[in-house]
């Protein structure tokens, strides 16, 4: 049995999350990934924004920062640039990362800075009471979309790929073991890695959309997630209510901090010669 307790700040339990919330599944998956990689815990830094998912950082026995809403990636950028030997993992949600933090998300991916972003996408603003977010599916209900969301949604992973992230993957809390591997690969990627994990919010999204029990919501994930390989063989009609999971893009590119180090070293050499 995996020893979760050694990684947790048990004094701060119980968790604030509702019964059936997917955040705990993601937290355990992160710990398994970090443990598999044998990362020294003093060298791990977990940075989060604001929202239900962003409370995750406080439960983990690493260097942890709970930042301002949407800004986790900016703090993480400063930490990584100042101390590149730290492994910096960002935990964020769909509202935190793609609405208020959308610009930071695009630019962190563009820089391809060596951060691993675990984005827990529960399709709603949970902490504030279930308002619709940029990923709430069109037509779905929320406390601010009582007649169904009339807006289009973000394809978060697609956005990260377009912006230049080195590693982009998606999974769900139903596929927890896949999450472990994807997070591991994200951490190992020398560049910007996004792991988008679809998670159930039974309290807000589930109730507003009559999605059933937490278990029903996980079964929905199972039934609507298709692997990238399978998706290739499916027609657009078949894919209409599906989403792809697994590795969506691997795009090795120069990493921001490493490139800057090359500049520092080059200038030092020049100075030494002169």
């Amino acid at each position: 049995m995996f020893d979760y307790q050694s990684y947790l700040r048990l004094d701060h339990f119980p968790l604030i999350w509702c019964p059936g919330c997917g955040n705990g599944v993601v937290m355990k998956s992160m710990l398994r990934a970090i443990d598999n990689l044998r990362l020294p815990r003093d060298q791990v830094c977990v940075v989060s924004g604001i929202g239900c998912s962003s409370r995750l950082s406080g439960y983990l026995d690493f260097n942890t920062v709970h930042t301002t809403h949407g800004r986790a990636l900016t703090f993480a950028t400063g930490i990584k640039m100042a101390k590149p030997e730290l492994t910096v993992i960002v935990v964020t949600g769909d509202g935190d990362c793609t609405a208020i933090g959308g610009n930071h998300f695009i630019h962190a991916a563009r820089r391809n800075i060596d951060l691993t972003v675990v984005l827990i996408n529960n399709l709603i603003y949970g902490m504030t009471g279930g308002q619709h977010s940029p990923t709430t599916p069109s037509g779905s209900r929320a406390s601010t979309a009582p007649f169904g969301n009339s807006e289009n949604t973000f394809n978060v992973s697609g956005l990260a790929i377009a912006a230049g992230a080195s590693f982009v993957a998606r999974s769900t809390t139903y596929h927890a073991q896949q999450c472990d591997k994807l997070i591991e690969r994200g951490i190992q990627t020398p560049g910007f890695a996004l792991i988008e994990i679809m998670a159930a919010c039974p309290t807000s999204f589930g109730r507003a959309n009559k999605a059933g029990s937490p278990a029903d919501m996980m079964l929905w994930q199972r039934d609507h997630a298709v692997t990238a390989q399978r998706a290739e063989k499916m027609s657009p009609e078949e894919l209409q209510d599906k989403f792809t999971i697994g590795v969506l893009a691997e795009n090795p590119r120069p990493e921001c901090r490493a490139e800057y180090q090359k500049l520092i070293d080059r200038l030092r050499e020049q100075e030494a010669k002169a």
Partner: protein
Amino acid sequence: MTRSSRPLTDPSKRRPPRMLSGNEACALAAIDAGMRFYAGYPITPSSEIAEHLANWLPRVGGVFIAMEDEIASMGAIIGASLAGTKSMTATSGPGFSLMQENIGYASMAEVPVVVVNVMRGGPSTGLPTSPAQGDVMQARWGTHGDHPVIALTPYSVEETYEATVRAFNLSEQYRVPVILLLDEVIGHVNEKVALPEREALRIVERPKPEVPPEQYLPYVDTPTGVPPMAPFGAGYRYHVTGLAHDETGFQTNDPKVIDAQLRRLHRKLELGRHDIVEVDEFLLDDAEIGVFAYGSSARSARRAIRLAREKGIRVGMLRPKTMWPFPDEEVRAWTKRLRAWLVPEMNLGQAAHEVEWAVAGAVPVRRLGRVDGNLFHPNDILAAIEELA
């Protein structure tokens, strides 16, 4: 406990004189103070600070990064400071507005950072290349909640160098964001200065924990009110949040703990007040009229005071080098010997409001505001002095 953030250990030790702008002096001083991380977004009239640092920082092993906006710049310097690196950003009014969110975070989480605001005309996009002093109150109250802050207002290129070193010393000493308030004239004016020798600088580092990690309390009260700060990656795994927290750094809803922590944030600056607050007194000893002026307005005021003295008017100047915490004790002390105060500033009465509050009706306080993007002409200030004489 005696503490000093004053940067000059021996003011006589100087480098050979050279021509420098205020922005360049600021960038040089930041490097000399040990700043090794700069994050910023271009904005006139502060951009030269970023340009110099983009050139100099990698040469000393530091990092310059151009962020996507000023919100991100503030976030990045807080992150770098948590990692143990002295960090800074520079901006002007519109960018300073965007930084307010995370300036509040730095106050609450007690992260030392330096924010340079080279003031230009506002509100809004305002006057990008003209001087103003309209951000005095924003420097104090720009972010929400009751937060402590330090703001410095140098009035020359030489003083900008010293104030920048001092800004880092203060931010490290008190674990607080320090705002360096320049204005367009101070940022862009070129002056001949003999900078202090680097070896003659007093450089302050943040207090470090002296206990093992398992006993470390990142927000513990101390005699100075300033808790020791461990850099990330040094074995002290702790939690940082902008939420109200207890001495362990974790969120709390306990009213007693919240009250004690927030009062400590203010107390640490009150305890350090005599180190933090610095004023310059110019011809005040026999004065009947006191001018309270700062930044480039104080340059015009100096000339006006000399002209008034030639006419036999006994006038002097109290010039705050520290704007926040406000030098109210100093204003009150001089008020006892004065007939009136004159407050020329490039806004419609921001520091004047504080002077009036300190004076509390004991003598008249005359406001002299200018918001057209031009400097005061010494004659404008002289005319106001003559009216009071």
